């Protein structure tokens, strides 16, 4: 019974993975990938890794949903009403795909995979919990926080309201002296929007509370006064 389930899930996973590259509709491709992952989650269930299997389904559904949404937002042909080709070098990619598949299959079949059957009734969920909060705690906590910081950083980098003005308006940093030229490069007269952006944000920065990078400038400014 388990064998039949394993073969069925594996076949479905491979077939839907192949469909990802053959369908024209990006939404179908996204959800075909999700089906493939769900099958892998099912295989994990067969291996008594309950939590990992169901969590895979859970996570993949959410991730594929967000990916699907981005497909609709950014791709010009998400419904596949125009025929589409996913890859740029068609023959080469087919060849590479087949070669990789054969290579990995040979590798898997030729290695001696471990054969440690679990004792029946073993609480794998408890073991997983102990591992996550015991030996592997450092890895998971730091990975989680790093991912969050990366996401926040990506959003901040790509957002239009920049630190010194709109990011597509050529914002410039404030000057070294209050009311002086912007620090770093010279403002070109031709870039009208660049200069404007620099001026307005320049004023805003001067009026606002001192930020951490202003402090060095201010210290520079203060020293000549103290000396004199």
């Amino acid at each position: 019974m388990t064998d039949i389930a394993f073969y069925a899930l594996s076949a479905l996973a491979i077939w839907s993975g192949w469909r990802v590259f053959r369908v024209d509709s990006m939404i179908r491709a996204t959800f075909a990938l999700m089906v493939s992952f769900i099958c892998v989650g099912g295989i994990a269930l067969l291996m008594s890794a309950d939590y990992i299997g169901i969590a895979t389904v859970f996570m993949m559904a959410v991730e594929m949903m967000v990916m699907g949404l981005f497909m609709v937002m950014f791709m010009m042909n998400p419904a596949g009403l125009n025929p589409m080709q996913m890859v740029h070098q068609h023959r080469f990619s087919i060849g590479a795909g087949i070669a990789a598949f054969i290579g990995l299959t040979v590798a898997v079949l030729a290695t001696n995979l471990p054969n440690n059957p679990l004792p029946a009734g073993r609480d794998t969920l408890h073991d997983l919990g102990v591992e996550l909060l015991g030996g592997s705690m450092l890895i998971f906590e730091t990975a989680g926080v790093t991912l969050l910081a990366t996401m926040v950083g990506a959003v901040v980098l790509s957002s239009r309201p920049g630190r010194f003005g709109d990011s597509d308006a050529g914002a410039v940093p404030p000057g070294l002296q209050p009311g002086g030229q912007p620090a770093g490069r010279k403002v070109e007269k031709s870039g009208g929007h660049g200069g404007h952006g620099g001026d307005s944000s320049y004023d805003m920065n001067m009026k606002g509370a001192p930020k951490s990078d202003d402090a060095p400038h201010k210290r520079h400014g203060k020293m000549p006064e103290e000396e004199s």
Partner: protein
Amino acid sequence: MAKLASQAPVPVFVAQGDDAPAETARLCLNSTLTIVETPRAAAILLVAGTIPASLIPNLHRLHDQLPHPRATVFWQAEPTDLLSEAVTVRNDDNLVSVLTDTRSSLLSGSHGTEADLLPDAPPNEWRGVGSHGQGGKGMMGGTPYGRPMAMTAADFRDGLELDAYTADFGPFLPMFPPGLVLTLTLQGDVIQKVSVVHLPFAGEGNAGAALLRLLGLPALAKRLLRGPSDDADFKRLIRLSGVRAAIPPGLGCAPIGSDVRERFERLTTDPGNPSKVHVDGVGLGDLLIGLEWHEAMLVLNSFDDESLRAICANTSSPELEEKNGDSMDHEGHAGHMS
């Protein structure tokens, strides 16, 4: 099955025309009818009031969207040429009984279902100009199945290059004031450009009930339509629902003078006396651009007819008259988008 089905309320989709009878807004109060919000759920298309000649193709497209078995009933209007065999009801006939009888005869088969008025085929050839049959701009572009593909356009809020979709949103949409046809360019559900193709009809809609329906309270909308006699209960229910807090403050405000919240207050407490708005020089563009769909619908429905007609008259109308055939109650625009 037919006997069971005939016990359910008659699903009717109302296509409101010019000079619609005043009772049209109150049709939903009748418990033997359900006024549905999409023609796909209806069995009978009720055309109330005269449909002007420019909107008759839209009416025919709408007619074809009702699932079989279907029938059309014209109320205080002349049937159009293609629908000359439809049932007509004059002012003094009992509309509800005509609708119920028509539905029963549809179910029993004695009244044959009305055939499609338009051919059931895509208006344009699918095959485009590219090597794979696509529109010619790489994998994208062109007009597959006769519909222009949305191409990239910068969103005006933050410059992000998404795909802008332009379509006409038609005269019979239940959340639009009747008769209003707008050409909207949407980025997702945010309105980027708006122009008026057809002005709304002058009629007596109940804006308060429309707003309540849009805010997810159809039962309270019915209560409002029934009449202001249930004042205490109605006020309590309105307060309990938090509907005033649900409307964002300052929506649809500048440069009119009052925002949707205030207009909504007036409409639900004192329906006969809507708030005055200053409409000189204000067009739909000033009001709707940058709003997302739900907010835009709230703004559109918060005005009384005259103000809305004045605002729409102030808005630009598209120069392009070319329209593609379409099987929805909106149509794709050829021309500058493709």
